[in-house]
């Protein structure tokens, strides 16, 4: 244990055991533009002084992943996924694919008569969404792998979780090779002048979130050279062919997968399924399917109950139920008295406006291709359960043409990987330097 961590144990011995060893400096609550400017200056200084190879970064990440397995982090949503993400086995292939064969040691690679090498863009600003607990960390790791320094705005609701996870990085990185390239700040989302200060201090930005917040950040005055990478806002849908959902032997398993995708992130992530399309089939009964789905939702809810809800979301769920059923007798629904979950059943090929909050609209369609043809680029992920591989490939091709960026198996809709939202995660935040030797 480093001297610094020992100090933390002593000074914070009065707090809850789970918060022992939490480094409160890992995320600083800032109140002035000067604090942000100073943090950015320190990051630039670190970039000037150190060069770090992707391989060295992976080594620290590997130790960080191991540190995250501590029991005290078991209640952090996404901690398990983060552990897997940080493993060399996960990130090395991503690095090799995005930055080339020599990427690990940070060297040059041949490109005809020239050589290429990835260099960091500089200081990358991160504006993660507030609805995915580990997103500040995920976003940051992508830019760090490119050798960048990171200035991260942590949404106020995620400060505690982020501090707990970052404390483990300090354990894994006692010499500060990575931590001195990171500055995490938190401030109220309405503090435009602090957002502005952050935007002006960075060379690149990774922006995640809903329409309102993304638009707000994009309006900031970034330097003219800054590269802006936007993830979201998007919605996701699921689809099943009749051979899959009509098969009573496997239906319960598929329903569990769907429930898992709906529950994660309280259905507020861009990869959360909002609508499930069922291809009509002879002998297939949608009501039977809904009963299995209802059971899966009940079980998932028992395993992962909500502990709080925004009153506005409870209102929105009540309104979605009523609006759906008041449209007429063709529309059906299943829901408990509480706003825990809602299944709305009907027919049609249009994706309805999402309610979120574990409200899944299930629509029976004649042809899944027709539903895909209505996508307008808003759809991020198409979760599939299709029995026939040829049919699935045709659907994937049509979905790609209609703007879908991820086509995955149901139950794996949230598995974060590169590319995401149709773009690579590391390469956009590096400069590829071309070097042609002066001597032939």
């Amino acid at each position: 244990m480093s001297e610094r961590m020992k100090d933390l144990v002593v000074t914070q011995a009065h707090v809850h055991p789970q918060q022992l060893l939490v480094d409160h400096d890992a995320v600083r609550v800032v109140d002035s533009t000067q604090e942000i400017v100073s943090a950015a200056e320190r990051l630039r200084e670190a970039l000037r002084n150190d060069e770090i190879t992707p391989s060295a970064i992976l080594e620290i990440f590997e130790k960080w992943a191991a540190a995250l397995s501590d029991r005290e982090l078991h209640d952090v949503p996404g901690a398990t996924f983060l552990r897997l993400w940080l493993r060399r086995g996960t990130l090395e292939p991503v690095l090799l694919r995005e930055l080339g064969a020599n990427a690990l040691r940070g060297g040059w690679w041949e490109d005809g008569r020239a050589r290429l090498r990835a260099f960091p863009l500089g200081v990358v600003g991160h504006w993660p969404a507030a609805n995915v607990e580990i997103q500040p960390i995920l976003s940051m790791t992508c830019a760090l792998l490119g050798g960048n320094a990171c200035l991260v705005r942590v949404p106020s609701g995620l400060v505690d979780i982020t501090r707990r996870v970052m404390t483990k990085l300090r354990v894994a990185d006692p010499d500060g090779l990575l931590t001195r390239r990171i500055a995490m700040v938190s401030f109220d989302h309405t503090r435009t002048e602090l957002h502005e200060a952050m935007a002006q201090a960075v060379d690149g930005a990774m922006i995640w979130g809903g329409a309102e917040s993304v638009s707000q950040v994009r309006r900031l005055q970034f330097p003219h050279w800054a590269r802006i990478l936007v993830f979201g806002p998007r919605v996701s849908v699921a689809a099943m062919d009749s051979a899959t959902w009509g098969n009573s032997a496997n239906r319960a398993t598929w329903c569990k997968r769907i429930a898992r995708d709906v529950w994660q992130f309280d259905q507020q992530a861009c990869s959360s399924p909002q609508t499930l399309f069922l291809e009509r089939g002879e002998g297939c009964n949608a009501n039977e399917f809904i009963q299995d789905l209802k059971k899966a939702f009940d079980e998932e809810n028992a395993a992962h109950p909500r502990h709080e809800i925004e009153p506005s979301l409870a209102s929105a769920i009540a309104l979605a139920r009523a609006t759906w059923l008041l449209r007429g007798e063709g529309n059906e629904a299943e829901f408990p008295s509480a706003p825990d979950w809602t299944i709305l059943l009907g027919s049609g090929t249009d994706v309805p406006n999402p309610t979120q909050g574990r409200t899944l609209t299930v629509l029976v369609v004649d042809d899944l291709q027709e539903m895909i043809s209505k996508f307008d680029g808003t759809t991020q992920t198409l979760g599939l359960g299709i029995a026939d591989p040829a049919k699935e490939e045709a659907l994937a091709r049509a979905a790609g043409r209609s703007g879908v960026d991820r086509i995955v198996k149901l139950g794996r809709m949230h598995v974060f990987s590169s590319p995401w939202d149709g773009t690579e995660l590391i390469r956009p935040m590096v400069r590829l330097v071309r070097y042609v030797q002066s001597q032939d």
Partner: protein
Amino acid sequence: MSSIAEIEQGIDGLLAAPPYGGNGDVQQRRATLLALFKQELAYACEQNPRFRNYVEHWPVDYREAEEIADLPYLPVGVFKSNPPLALVAASEVKRTLTSSATTGQIPSRIVLDAATSRRMTKGVLTIVRDFIGSARRPYLVVDTPENLAAQGQLGARGAAVQALGSFATEIVSCLRPGENGDSRLDVERLLECAAKWQNSEVLVYGFTFVVWTQLVQPLQQLGLTLNLPNARILHSGGWKRLLQQAVTRDVFASGVAAVFGCATERIVDYYGMVENVGVIYPDCEHGNKHVPAFAEVIVRDPLTLKPVKVGERGLIQVCSALPTSFPGFLLLTEDTAEVMSYDTCACGRQGTSFRFAGRVPKAEVRGCGNLEHTRLRQLQTSGVV
């Protein structure tokens, strides 16, 4: 199956009783209401197949419900639909009430037939009489005459102004339409009336924000006092804009009392909404809002949607037995309140008492799955396609 005549008889019985305690004990009152709501739900299901579809999917069969809280309620947002949700034929609609939606929002539309309209007036009178007595008196409306005259389609302000008209010996509006579509205080007319009514009981009504910005502030600027110590000022409507200007309830009350020259106790804030026809909730002398015999208020925990305990806050559900022209018996609002008591308030009024806590705040977490417009809709709105 319930006949409308049976239902009307039940409603009239409740309306005839003293509003806050003369209808047996609280439990008996709730049992009477529960039975009436079940009849009304059955009737509504017969009248409107879309409403029946909703009720049939409710997790609890309303016929078996043992509490009003178990009955199927509608969120008020469903009344933003067009055509409005109705239980009567269009030919029977006498008036359509619209809510005071803020800019860019769709207002609720409530259809009233003659019977519901009559009950709406009677309900408000019964409640207000309990607070200010039954004597008729001069009625000063802090609004324009146009809002008094409206019939057919009536906004929330107009409905509130008109509802108190039965207490009036004469009605005077103290605002005049301005040149830019706004309104301005008719100071001359106001002072003339104030001089005439000086020692009389006077009823004053206006929207909270209008009373402050169009009456109190102009009079303060002019340094004028109306000298109406017997004025009773009723006001309703949101506080959001006033609170943004740092006008708290105390600042408001002392400001109004100063320009009228009356005690702050004579100023009564009440909560109400057009969807909850015939029911308003004035503050009693202990600052609590009360529910009359023909209505109920349930405050629901957003997490479970179950009723909260005394002292807890949640979403307000308003229940009223009065409407039969639209399914507005049981409505989940977008407002929050704290339950003060389920039995008796220190003021002596029986039944549920509560304190309004504000509108449901807009969700703060706007995740990456939060789309305000699809790409196609965005392009259409901007005229690109």
